[in-house]
C-alpha cells in the first residue's frame, strides 16, 4: 500500500484519467475548438505517461555531474530514452495543433459556424 503512494503511481493514474477525459471530450463535444483542446489534453497525458514510465525511485536526472558517479552511472540515473522521445513529441505536438487550428479556421471561414455537425462537405 505504501507502494501505491509513490510518485510514479500517482502520475500514471493521472495520465490515464487525463487520457479518458480527453477522449470523452473528443467524442462528445460538437465545437471544433473544444475537440482541438481535447486533443492537446490527450497529447499532454501521453507525454506524462511516457515520462513516468521512465522514472525509477531514488534516482536523479540523466545528467552526469558531481552528484552522479561517472563509473557506475547506470545505477544512479533514470532512463534517458523516453525523455528524448517526449522531447521530440512535444515539438511535433505544437505543429499538429497549429495544423488543426489552421484547418479549423479555414472551415469556419467557409461555413461560418464552429459546429462540427454542420460541416457537410465531407459527408457522403
Amino acid at each position, binding site marked *: 500500500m505504501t507502494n501505491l*503512494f*509513490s*510518485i*510514479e503511481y*500517482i*502520475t500514471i*493514474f*493521472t495520465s490515464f*484519467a*487525463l487520457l479518458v*477525459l*480527453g477522449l*470523452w*471530450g473528443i467524442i462528445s*463535444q460538437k*465545437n471544433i*475548438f*473544444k475537440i482541438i*483542446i*481535447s486533443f*492537446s*489534453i490527450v497529447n*499532454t497525458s501521453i*507525454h*506524462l505517461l511516457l*515520462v*513516468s514510465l*521512465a*522514472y525509477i525511485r531514488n*534516482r*536523479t*536526472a*540523466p*545528467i552526469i555531474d558531481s552528484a552522479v558517479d561517472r563509473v557506475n552511472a547506470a545505477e544512479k540515473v*533514470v532512463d534517458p530514452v523516453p*525523455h528524448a522521445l*517526449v*522531447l521530440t513529441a*512535444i*515539438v511535433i*505536438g*505544437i505543429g499538429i*495543433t*497549429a495544423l488543426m*487550428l489552421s484547418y*479549423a*479556421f479555414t472551415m*469556419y471561414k467557409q461555413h461560418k459556424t*464552429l459546429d462540427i455537425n454542420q460541416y457537410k462537405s465531407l459527408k457522403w
Partner: protein
Amino acid sequence: MIYSIIVLILSLIMLVMALVAIHHKSLQIAVIASGIISLFASVVYIFLAAPDVAITEASIGSALTVIIFFYVLNKIRHSDAKE
C-alpha cells in the same frame, strides 16, 4: 513523502482543469485551462527527474500553444462582431 503529497495536489488540479477545459462554455477559459494543465505537467516532470522535458513543456506547451489558440480565437470573435 512530501513530494508525493505535492504531486497529488498538482494532479488533482490538472484533473479539475481538464474538466473545465472540456465542459466550460467560454472558449477563452477552456484554452487557458488547457495551458494550466501543461504548466502543472511541467512541474510534475521536475519531480519525475526530467528537467529537459520540463523546460520544453513549459516553453512550448503552456506558452506558444496558448498564443496560437488566442490568435485564431481573436480573429473569429472579430468576424462574429462584424455580422
